[in-house]
């Protein structure tokens, strides 16, 4: 054996070489010999190959020989220099045919010799280096060449790249294919090695921690590009970046962070996949190469295997343990068997004796080994989780509990401590009392002052240190407790427990077994035993989980899904309320007032609040409804008070009062035996001081009852609302449960059910559960329409919303008479509510959800009431006590002006009358004012003007209409107009409609009784209207100036000052601006040039009044007709190419005929006023007078004929005008030439129409 080969380190080589220096030849020969020797194993093979080739070569032609030759050369050269020579020498003789080659080799040998001769002239070191080079290279000899561990002596730092080395180039590749591509590069380079274009890269590599890129070692980027060309998944186009030379080494030094190194026996790990995924396991041993670890964990053997999978027996015998164990232990993927230690008897019973074999101390079952109840398995390192294992004490006890004494050593608490060291750090808080257990300061006590990351500042308690501040690594301290400390458990199973420390142990039992470096860590956590304040049991926990705490208490109100005070079902008959929770049990008070201790599994279900309690309703001893959360007390017996927690089957009520110690303050009683502790109005909740008055006044109460249903919907109401709620018991908005459709906003068109409401009026919010998508939305009530069974809809709030008042609880019965009278009025189905059916616009009664608002409603529909201007559109204000309308509010604040107007008794009657007054009107002057404000006065005015009785007003609501009727009466002399009829107005009695009509008064004491004023003060009326008119901007000086006359009756109340009705200017402005707002939010309607040909208008065509316009501009007929009005006689559609014309009769003075009269004369020569006019010059005339008839040109009611019920504003085209549909039953004839307003008995629905949608009739 040559020394050279034997001595891998260079230094040695060098020495040897020097020794050999003198005999070069000899060394060479030795080398050869060595090489032969080394090649021993390969030689036979090689020789054989050789021989074969030689034999063949005889039959090969020269070319083959040549190629053979080349191959040979390669072979040899690949063997390395030394081998080359050796073999050449060895085989030269036998290769007779290859003289040339032999010659060549001889030449080489000669050359070599020459060199060797020269070598003598070289320094010994040089020679040595040469040799080293040679041998170094020669070591690439065969697969079995001697392992020399080249270069392992050289420190890594000396291997750092230099500028002479090839560069590294970063190439982007498809993530996930890095490795594949590196392999491809390798193969590619081998494939192309002997082609004309070999790859000139030196290496390529990939790191797992650098996804999406590979690095190629090459001299130039061009070479890299060439190498990568054609490989799938390589993106050289994304740039081939040079890696800076100082980063090259770093790329290869990347160390993947993996915990593999720290796996030692005893470590806790978690299993990553399979049935045991997530289970805690303990490392038992680690294989030498560290890729597999033996772990043990608690098995999950299915002891109730399903019968259906081909019979357990057969399956069990299946040799393929993997499958069977999977199926046997995991019947369904959804549920896995519980963790349970392996029990030979049990398993044998279920799976049969043959399935389990015993090997020494262990059992083998389905291919797995079970020892001491645990399953022991070798698992690959990559299928366990090493980080963040955080074993809980529960899990560890599973390992420790069942282990015998011997096994106890396996449970090395130090490892848990290690694992949770970080967690323990987080547990430290300033102020904690700690002791240092390792390091220089070991044994020191102190309190934590500050925490900076891993560093603590503690103040030493040792007197010799003078409260010095010391910085320490956090891991070197542990919390310190001493017996007598009051502590609280901060984490773990016993979290929330508090107690007194009785002992602190250094966990000696564990220390005993840890003789290694873990001993230090052992000290980190002591085990503290304390007596729980709650259970009086000893509890042992790690000190890290404790902290000193002053509080005593059970913070665990929640166990599992059950919470304190939950109503739970124990069995079919028994329910109970949890009144105390323990760590894993409850104390429950059943409905039979028994206390039971139950475990969570004994609870069959939790009665969810939503499904039961919240909606379970019981009645108390007085028949009132009890709801969860009410404060009730027992009517008899102990008279215990309490808050209702749950109601069970409408019979038992569970109440809670923390003042009672028994059963945690929970008690159960019969719901029937309860009485509310809060007198009426609990639910309304807002008892104004004046409420008592209301209650005391039976009349008022009665009145409230009458109006109850209305008022209850609006808690904002005054006393009325309260009283109502007291009686109606429950403010539940009747809107709740209604089917509604959204008419505005992003949810427009959606249908849903109202689940809850908040607030009243159009701006109130309703929670609507949409039928679609099971979605809850909150939406203003104003955007909702109620869906009626007949498919139509109506607003839920405001005018037209009458549904609320459908008599449900008899309140309406008290309203009986009025409703009757209303129905008489011919407004169709508007019973009780005015507004409802008729176009939904009339705020009328119906509009006022609150019931009181009548006057307003009237005003609104009257259109002209000052308020009406605003109110017509926004029923809300009125619906809601009027309080919302700005105007109204303003008014309310300035009593005076109103007080003037207020006085109308009618108002009081109609509206909420009873209440405000009943409540002591004095308290709410504003309100009273409001009352005045709402007075339908405008009508009163009209009445007055028309000389009809002032009493109209007295009629309260109907009054308004009465006024119209009165008007009609004036014209027609027909006192029996539909509207008029109910109104006493007709009677003209000064006492007001109500007063005069006994039939009304009688049934509704509510009205009559509390507000005597209602009847008296008619005289006030005149004043009001004036004011209102002012608001509307109507010049009605006559009324406006009328001073309010105070009735003596009013003065009794003292609310109404006899101030003349004066409109405060600001209010006027307000109203105006409001009106403008309304006006400009609507679009103008511009009729199309051929609007007269609209088939919808054909029936009324001859009635239309049109104006001629635009002729001047076009010089049509010299424009002489411009501005004149005309009656349409006929209009027929002609072909599109022709100008649409209409035959009109021009009213008024016909201007002198012009020369261009030919056309007209041809149309109708007989009448100069009749002529044909291009339609484009004819525009509709908007209605400008109240009570005029008009035809609707546009919109859904196009073509219908209406009567204007509100005096339109002249300047504003888009104003909304209240109109009344004219019932066509009278036939066209009666509507004829004069309009026949008086003959339109009854009329139709009232609604609002934009003015420019109408064309007035002649």
């Amino acid at each position, binding site marked *: 054996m040559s020394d050279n080969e034997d001595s891998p380190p260079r230094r040695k080589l060098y020495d040897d070489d020097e020794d050999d220096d003198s005999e070069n030849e000899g060394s060479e020969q030795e080398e050869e010999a060595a090489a032969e020797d080394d090649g021993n194993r390969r030689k036979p093979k090689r020789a054989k190959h050789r021989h074969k080739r030689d034999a063949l070569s005889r039959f090969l032609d020269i070319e083959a020989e040549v190629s053979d030759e080349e191959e040979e050369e390669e072979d040899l050269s*690949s063997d390395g220099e030394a081998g080359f020579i050796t073999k050449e020498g060895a085989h030269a003789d036998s290769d007779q045919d290859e003289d040339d080659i032999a010659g060549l080799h001889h030449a080489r040998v000669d050359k070599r010799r020459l060199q060797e001769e020269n070598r003598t002239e070289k320094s010994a070191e040089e020679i040595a280096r040469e040799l080293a080079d040679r041998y170094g290279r020669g070591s690439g000899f065969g697969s079995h060449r001697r*392992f020399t561990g080249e270069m392992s002596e050289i420190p890594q730092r000396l291997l750092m790249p230099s500028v002479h080395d090839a560069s590294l180039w970063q190439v982007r590749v498809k993530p996930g294919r890095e490795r594949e591509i590196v392999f491809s590069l390798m193969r590619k380079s*081998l494939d192309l090695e002997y082609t004309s274009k070999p790859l000139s890269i*030196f290496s390529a590599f*990939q790191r797992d921690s650098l996804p999406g890129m590979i690095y190629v070692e090459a001299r130039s980027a061009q070479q890299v590009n060439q190498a990568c060309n054609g490989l799938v998944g390589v993106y050289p186009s994304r740039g081939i970046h040079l890696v800076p030379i100082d980063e090259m080494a770093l790329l290869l030094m990347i160390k993947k962070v993996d915990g593999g190194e720290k796996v030692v026996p005893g470590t806790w790990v978690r299993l990553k996949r399979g049935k045991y995924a997530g289970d805690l396991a303990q490392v038992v041993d680690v294989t030498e190469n560290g890729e597999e670890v033996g772990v043990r964990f608690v098995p999950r053997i299915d002891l109730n295997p399903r019968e259906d999978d081909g019979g357990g027996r057969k399956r069990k015998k299946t040799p393929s343990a993997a499958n069977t164990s999977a199926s046997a232990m995991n019947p369904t993927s959804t549920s896995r068997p519980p963790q349970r230690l392996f029990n030979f008897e049990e398993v044998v019973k279920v799976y049969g004796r043959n399935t389990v074999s015993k090997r020494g101390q262990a059992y083998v079952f389905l291919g797995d080994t079970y020892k001491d109840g645990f399953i022991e398995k070798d698992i690959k390192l990559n299928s366990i989780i090493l980080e963040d294992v955080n074993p809980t004490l529960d899990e560890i006890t599973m390992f420790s509990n069942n282990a015998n004494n011997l096994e106890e050593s396996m449970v090395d608490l130090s490892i848990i401590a290690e694992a949770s060291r970080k967690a323990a750090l987080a547990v430290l808080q300033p102020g904690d009392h700690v002791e240092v257990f390792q390091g220089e300061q070991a044994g020191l006590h102190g309190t934590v002052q500050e925490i900076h990351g891993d560093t603590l500042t503690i103040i030493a308690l040792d007197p010799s240190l003078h409260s010095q501040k010391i910085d320490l690594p956090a891991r070197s301290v542990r919390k310190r407790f001493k017996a007598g400390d009051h502590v609280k458990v901060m984490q773990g199973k016993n979290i929330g427990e508090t107690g007194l420390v009785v002992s602190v142990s250094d966990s000696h039992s564990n220390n005993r077994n840890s003789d290694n470096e873990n001993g230090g860590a052992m000290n980190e956590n002591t085990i503290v035993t304390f007596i729980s304040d709650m259970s009086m049991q000893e509890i042992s926990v790690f000190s890290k989980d404790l902290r000193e705490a002053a509080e005593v208490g059970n913070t665990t109100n929640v166990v599992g899904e059950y919470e304190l005070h939950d109503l739970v079902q124990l069995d079919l008959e028994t329910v109970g309320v949890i009144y105390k929770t323990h760590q894993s049990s409850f104390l429950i008070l059943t409905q039979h007032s028994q206390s039971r201790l139950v475990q969570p599994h004994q609870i069959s279900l939790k009665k969810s609040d939503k499904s039961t309690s919240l909606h379970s309703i019981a009645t108390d001893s007085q028949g009132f409804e009890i709801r969860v959360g009410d404060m009730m007390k027992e009517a008899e017996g102990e008279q215990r008070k309490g808050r209702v927690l749950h109601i069970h089957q409408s019979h038992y009520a569970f109440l809670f009062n923390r003042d009672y110690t028994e059963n945690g303050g929970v008690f159960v009683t019969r719901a029937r035996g309860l009485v509310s502790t809060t007198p009426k109005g609990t639910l309304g909740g807002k008892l104004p001081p004046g409420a008592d008055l209301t209650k005391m006044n039976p009349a008022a109460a009665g009145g409230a009852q009458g109006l109850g249903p209305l008022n209850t919907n609006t808690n904002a109401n005054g006393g009325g609302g309260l009283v109502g709620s007291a009686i109606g018991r429950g403010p539940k908005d009747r809107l709740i449960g209604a089917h509604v459709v959204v008419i505005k906003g992003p949810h427009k068109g959606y249908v849903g059910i109202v689940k809850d409401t908040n607030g009243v009026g159009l701006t109130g919010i309703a929670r609507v559960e949409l039928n679609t998508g099971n979605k809850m939305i909150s939406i203003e009530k104003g955007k909702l329409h109620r869906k009626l069974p007949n498919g139509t809809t109506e607003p839920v709030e405001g005018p037209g919303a009458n549904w609320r008042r459908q008599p449900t609880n008899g309140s309406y019965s008290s309203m009986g008479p009025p409703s009757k009278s209303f129905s008489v009025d011919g407004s169709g189905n508007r019973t009780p509510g005015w507004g409802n059916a008729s176009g939904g616009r009339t705020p009328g009664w119906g509009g006022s959800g609150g019931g009181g608002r009548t006057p307003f409603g009237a005003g609104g529909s009257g259109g002209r009431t000052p308020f009406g201007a605003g109110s017509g559109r926004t029923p809300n204000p009125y619906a809601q006590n009027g309080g919302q309308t700005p105007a109204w509010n303003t008014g309310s604040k300035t009593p005076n002006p109103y007080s003037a107007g207020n006085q109308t008794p009618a108002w009081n009657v109609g509206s909420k009358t009873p209440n405000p007054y009943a409540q002591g009107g004095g308290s709410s002057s504003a309100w009273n004012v409001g009352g005045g404000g709402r007075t339908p006065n405008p009508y009163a005015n009209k009445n007055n003007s028309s000389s009809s009785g002032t009493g109209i007003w007295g009629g309260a609501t109907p009054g308004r209409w009465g006024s119209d009727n009165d008007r009609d009466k004036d014209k027609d002399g027909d006192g029996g107009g539909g509207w008029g009829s109910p109104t006493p107005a007709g009677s003209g009695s000064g006492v007001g409609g109500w007063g005069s009509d006994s039939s009304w008064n009688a049934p509704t004491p509510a009205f009559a009784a509390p507000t005597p004023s209602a009847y008296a003060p008619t005289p006030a009326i005149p004043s009001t209207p004036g004011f209102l008119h002012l608001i509307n901007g109507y010049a009605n000086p006559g009324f406006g100036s009328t001073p309010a006359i105070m009735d003596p009756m009013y003065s009794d109340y003292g609310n109404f000052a006899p101030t003349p009705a004066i409109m405060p200017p600001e209010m006027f402005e307000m109203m105006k601006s409001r009106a403008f707002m309304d006006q400009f939010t609507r679009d103008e309607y511009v009729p199309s040039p051929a609007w007269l040909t609209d088939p919808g208008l054909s029936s009324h065509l001859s009635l239309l009044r049109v104006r001629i316009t635009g002729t001047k501009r076009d010089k049509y007929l010299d424009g002489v007709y411009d501005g004149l009005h005309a009656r349409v006689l006929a209009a027929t559609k002609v072909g599109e190419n022709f100008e649409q014309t209409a035959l009109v009769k021009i009213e008024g003075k016909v201007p002198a005929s012009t020369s261009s009269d030919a056309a007209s004369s041809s149309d109708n020569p007989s009448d100069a006023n009749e002529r044909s006019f291009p339609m484009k010059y004819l525009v509709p005339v908007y209605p400008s007078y109240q009570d005029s008839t008009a035809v609707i040109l546009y919109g859904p009611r196009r073509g219908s004929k209406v009567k204007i019920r509100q005096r339109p504003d002249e300047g504003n085209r888009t104003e909304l005008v209240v109109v009344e549909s004219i019932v066509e039953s009278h036939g066209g004839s009666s509507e004829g030439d004069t309009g026949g307003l008086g003959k339109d008995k009854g009329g139709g629905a009232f609604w609002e129409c934009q003015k420019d949608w109408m064309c007035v009739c002649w």
Partner: protein
Amino acid sequence: MSDAASAIIPPTKSRHLRACLLCSIIQTSSDFRNIGCPNCEEILQLKDNPDRILACTTSYYDGVIALIDPEASWVARWQRTAKYVRGMYAARVKGRVPEDVEAELDSRGIKYRPRDQSDQD
């Protein structure tokens, strides 16, 4: 001298790739069994010795290096594989060779350098 002997280049998709703990060459386990480790067979004796293969090779390695020209490559020098055959090498191999191998290396005066980059000087 780029035409050194090359190891068998294993198929990329092979699931049984293992890296030699001594020289970090990557081969399939069947290749290890059939031909042994092309670099360290003399000392590891892996051929036809599955147990030995399990002990001296591992499937836990990180980073794959395609060593095309070991002698000219700096990467190879850095990885101390410059004198080895061409082939696929791992950048980092987890684990140490069995103790007897370490003893053998020691007796030969070869410093054993684990391939897990645990000691870099």
